[in-house]
């Protein structure tokens, strides 16, 4: 059902990437302007330590600049960078964990998102109690479901790219997202039904 149309940005991206690989500073600068904030935003969802995330993104860009001649061509710069950052963060946090006290990072890497429910539902006069129940349903999503939803809906990436970023197969991505939506829907709209009888 989903439009999997070719992103027109991909063409520009491919050119930009070529220029970057040739060592053009302006291309590198454009890459930074375009993707640096997005990568920070993605990074902090794994690890709520701003400085750590800034360092990780910094290292990633320095690394790709230094290795630019040896990088392969990429289809989507965005998912390439997201994937690379994800790997680096997981690797680096593993390393940190090894060095630090075990209890400091006792749990595995999380994926932390805050959903945007309040503004919409409060304006529709839904009671706080219901709102809390909704929030609880959202909180029940697994971290993998959250990440998939974030990449699909916030970053607008197609399923294949999400699959390669998260290092899982195509079918699993679809399942993750479908299951998440289904479970929320089933549990929520039972609660919400009376308030939904009008249309704004």
């Amino acid at each position, binding site marked *: 059902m989903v439009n999997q149309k070719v992103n027109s940005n991909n063409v520009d991206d491919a050119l930009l990437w070529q220029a970057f690989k040739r060592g053009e500073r302006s291309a590198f600068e454009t890459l930074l302007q375009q993707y640096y904030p997005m990568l920070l935003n993605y990074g902090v*969802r794994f690890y709520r330590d701003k400085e750590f995330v800034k360092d990780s993104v910094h290292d990633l860009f320095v690394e790709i600049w230094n*290795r630019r001649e040896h990088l392969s061509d990429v289809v989507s710069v965005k998912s390439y960078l997201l994937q690379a950052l994800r790997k680096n963060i997981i690797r680096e946090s593993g390393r940190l964990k090894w060095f630090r006290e075990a209890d400091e990072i006792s749990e595995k890497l999380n994926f932390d998102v805050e959903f945007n429910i309040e503004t919409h539902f409060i304006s529709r006069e839904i009671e706080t109690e219901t709102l809390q129940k909704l929030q609880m349903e959202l909180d029940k999503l697994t971290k993998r479901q959250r990440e998939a939803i974030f990449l699909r809906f*916030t970053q*607008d990436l197609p399923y294949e790219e999400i699959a390669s970023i998260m290092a899982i197969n195509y079918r699993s991505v679809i399942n993750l997202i479908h299951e998440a939506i289904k479970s929320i829907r089933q549990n929520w709209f039972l609660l919400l039904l009376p308030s939904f009888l009008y249309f704004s």
Partner: protein
Amino acid sequence: MKNYNNCSVEDLVLDAYFRKWSLGELPTKDTFWEKWLEEYPEKTQLIEDAKSLVIALKVKNTDMFSDEEINDGIQNILVETQHKYPGLKIISFKWLRIAASIAIIFGLSWWMTSKNVLNITNIDTISSIEQKATHTNHGKQSIIFELADGSKITLEPQSELRYGNEFGKEKREVFLTGGAFFDVAKDTQRPFLVYTGKLVTKVVGTSFRIQAYEKDNDISVAVRSGKVTVYRQDRKSKNSKSLSTEIVLIPNQKAVFEKEQELLVKTLVDKPIRLDTIPENASLVFSETKVSDIFSRLEGIYGVKIGFDKNVFNKCTVTASFQTETLYEKLALICEIIQAKYEIVDGEIMIYGKGC
């Protein structure tokens, strides 16, 4: 147009076009969904459920990183990658850590083993056009330097001034965080622009001081000489600069930009200086002098307009001798004698009272 008649809520939530509509991201001309609903009113509930779900699943943007941080982060990457031997320039633990992580990456990549590690040294510094110069003052004293156009900058501690390599060619544009005193070389062809957050200060040739520290709630621009224009930078409407957001300042006037409310107010500097050539501490003696004469004398000295009702104060005379007092101290003293009050309104001084 695709047929949505048999769509479930899940299908709609996953549909890019429907998502756009739900989030209000479609152009207003596009009324497909409104029309669709009119045609299938029985789908209202379904649509509304799907719409709510789309909105609920929108992830909040994190506001953890300020624009400033993002810009600094980008600058740091650019600086670190523009030298052949970054390690020689920035010797710090940060660099060691980066070196270590790069070494690990290289070590782990089997195809890098033989030839590539040494290639790092071959990185050339191309395209100097894009490079930017940055003056940063981390010390405890102001530093003074000159720009290519001859303008003199006194950069206060904990402040930074950045500009592109293009500086001076067509435009003179600099970006300031923190505080600085500008003594701008006159050049009517190329105005000098200082960007501080949302505030822009534009001059031709003059001297003024800007304080735009991140920690402060406001940005201030105080003028020493010449004429200075200050305005808000609106990204959306670059061409339609409305009059209300532009302020023209003359010496001893100051613009204060309150960041939170984005209010731009004209007032006077904290310590107005004499604009004539007479030394600051030259004595000023009045004996039974009409207060209106005193005010016009002060106007002449400080270049600040003093407004008052001539009829009210026409009988007031003052005998006083001033030396080191500031303008405000002088005014306070005069006002005490003539039973009046003064206020600073829109960069001018207003005197209120009942007269003598």
